[in-house]
């Protein structure tokens, strides 16, 4: 028996729409088997994972809070991936954005600085993220160094820098020696949308980013250039599009969005700078980008779905003592299935049962 791929005459649009759903279905089946192996009832585990978080207001808000950074980062990454530029260091750009914005919050702490503080922090975070992302992009464009490896290495560097700052110069003197800055002042905090709730302004900014990306990709020449450079580099060269310039641009934009997500996370839900502010948002966003088919609206939906798995994972740990690592396994398997199903868009899978024959097919 042999699996053979046959190229379709043109890409299948039906499968492009249903392939993420097939992938999610396959993942759920695989996860049920994993739950059974772990000795948990698969049905109740799946309910705790995917249904329970949708049934109370607190969890629903929490899903939106977790989805905001995921979607924001994934939108930027999708631009990179569409242009065939592989930024996988969004986690580092997220952390650097958080650090840069926090600098202002720490410096203005206890002063009578006005309402300009928060907007300035957000700008700083985005700018720092963009600059940090430009390092691998410039190394790529100028010297041809693999952006995959350099952007990833810088994640570790950003992590260590944050660790140094909150253990050293920025540590809260009244913080019982915990590695954290003091709680940010109200003017340095992202306001919540509903009094007493968790949902904050970041969710609105994320929606604006989604809309902007949809316009950029669907309605502008720049968006067209990005897609052509990625899909048909030769055609792009004939069209006079500058691939290097687009690498720099998409890296800068995705870095800015990751940095913005970082400072919003710190100035919003977390409220201070500390190690471990991200449960791997920068890496999960890669899955979000692919699950959303590199399409802004798709990414919005995919981000909400993966946020659901974060919340579900936490609840499953509390309610059923299912290890938190199951969520990562889940995300890895999901990405595999998404990619495999995407292959169906371009190819038709055929199982050949007879032994290998020379006369079969037209080849």
């Amino acid at each position, binding site marked *: 028996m042999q699996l053979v791929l046959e190229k379709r005459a043109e890409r299948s649009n039906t499968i492009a729409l249903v392939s993420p759903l097939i992938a999610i279905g396959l993942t759920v089946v695989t996860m049920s088997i994993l739950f059974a192996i772990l000795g948990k009832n698969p049905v109740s585990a799946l309910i705790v994972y995917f249904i329970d978080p949708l049934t109370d207001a607190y969890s629903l808000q929490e899903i939106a809070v977790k989805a905001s950074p995921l979607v924001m980062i994934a939108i930027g990454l999708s631009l990179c991936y569409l242009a065939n530029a592989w930024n996988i260091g969004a986690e580092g750009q997220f952390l650097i954005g958080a650090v840069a914005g926090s600098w202002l919050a720490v410096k203005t702490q206890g002063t009578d600085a006005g309402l300009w503080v928060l907007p300035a922090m957000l700008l700083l975070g985005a700018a720092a993220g963009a600059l940090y992302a430009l390092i691998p992009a410039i190394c790529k464009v100028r010297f*041809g*160094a*693999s952006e995959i490896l350099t952007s990833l*290495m810088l994640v*570790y560097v950003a992590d*260590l820098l944050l660790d140094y700052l909150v253990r050293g110069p920025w540590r809260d003197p009244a913080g019982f020696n915990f590695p954290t800055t003091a709680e940010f002042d109200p003017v340095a905090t992202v306001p919540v949308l509903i009094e007493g709730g968790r949902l904050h302004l970041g969710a609105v900014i994320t929606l604006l980013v989604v809309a902007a990306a949809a316009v950029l990709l669907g309605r502008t020449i720049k968006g067209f250039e990005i897609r052509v450079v990625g899909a048909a580099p030769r055609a792009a060269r004939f069209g006079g599009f500058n691939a290097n310039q687009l690498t720099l641009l998409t890296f800068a934009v995705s870095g800015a969005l990751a940095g913005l997500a970082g400072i919003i996370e710190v100035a919003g839900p977390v409220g201070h700078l500390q190690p471990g502010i991200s449960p791997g948002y920068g890496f999960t966003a890669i*899955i979000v980008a692919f699950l959303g088919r590199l399409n802004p609206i798709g990414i919005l939906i995919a981000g909400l779905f993966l946020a659901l798995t974060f919340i579900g994972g936490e609840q499953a740990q509390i309610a059923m003592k299912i290890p938190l690592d199951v969520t990562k396994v889940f995300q*890895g398997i999901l990405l*595999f299935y998404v990619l495999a199903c995407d292959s169906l868009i371009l190819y038709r899978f055929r199982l050949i049962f007879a032994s290998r024959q020379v006369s079969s097919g037209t080849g």
Partner: protein
Amino acid sequence: MELVEAIILSVLAASTPLLIAATGELVTERAGVLNLGVEGMMIVGAACGFGGAWLSGSTIIGALCGIIAGMLLSLVFAMMTLGLAVNQVASGLALTILGIGLSGLIGAGFVGERITPAPHLHIPGLTDIPLIGRILFGEDPFIYLSLALVVAVWGFLYRTRPGLVLRACGDNHVSAHALGYPVLRIRTLAVMFGGACAGLAGAYLPLAYTPFFIPGMTAGRGWIALALVVFASWLPGRLVIGAYLFGAVTILQLHAQGAGVGIPSQFMSALPYLATVIVLVLISRARTGGSTAPAALGTVFVPDR
């Protein structure tokens, strides 16, 4: 002098996982496949290697568990990228994310346990020679194995016909296919060899480097191994230089931290990662003109039957 000896010994030990993983990845990439999942295969190799050794009390069984675990994961990658023609970069990332999660699940039961580290070679007389005795004749078996592995891979790639065919697949899969070589099968074997090496490299950490398992203990070594392959221009001999250079950076920054050089420890810890970036830039810059990478590296191949 004792300090110098201790430093050299620890540099060799720190370099060995990098060398083993990079050697495996070099073979994979020479066959034209870019497997970015080295980090994931290593961390699962570490968890399974420790588990095997802890349950059986044997270093060898631990190492075998690591090898098998890495190989199984690489087989998933091979099915995706070779069987289903999926993008190799994205699949490699998926493999890493999956591996980190799996290792946490597998290793959860072992955290806090200790095992006896792999025994070091001891040849009476030779090992006792001052200065060079312990460095040449008193290492753990994996260090000798890693060097033998590099020599074997070099011999295979450049002195045997299958090695030539493997390189042909990496440079031009269409021609190799036209000549009748089973490109996908050869690539699958190369990916599995890479997986076995990554698993062994991961298992080395808890079996010989630190005798316990902690989640995330590979700490980016898989990614550094990938960078080493680029550094070595896909030549096995240069891997040795690269791996020992990186081992030296890792160990020297640790010693500098210990000596209290007044530089915050986090900056010293960042050195190996920064060094990787700088080395990648320098190497890529020096290589003006044609690249030495296998020409078909990372490209999808679907044979027309």
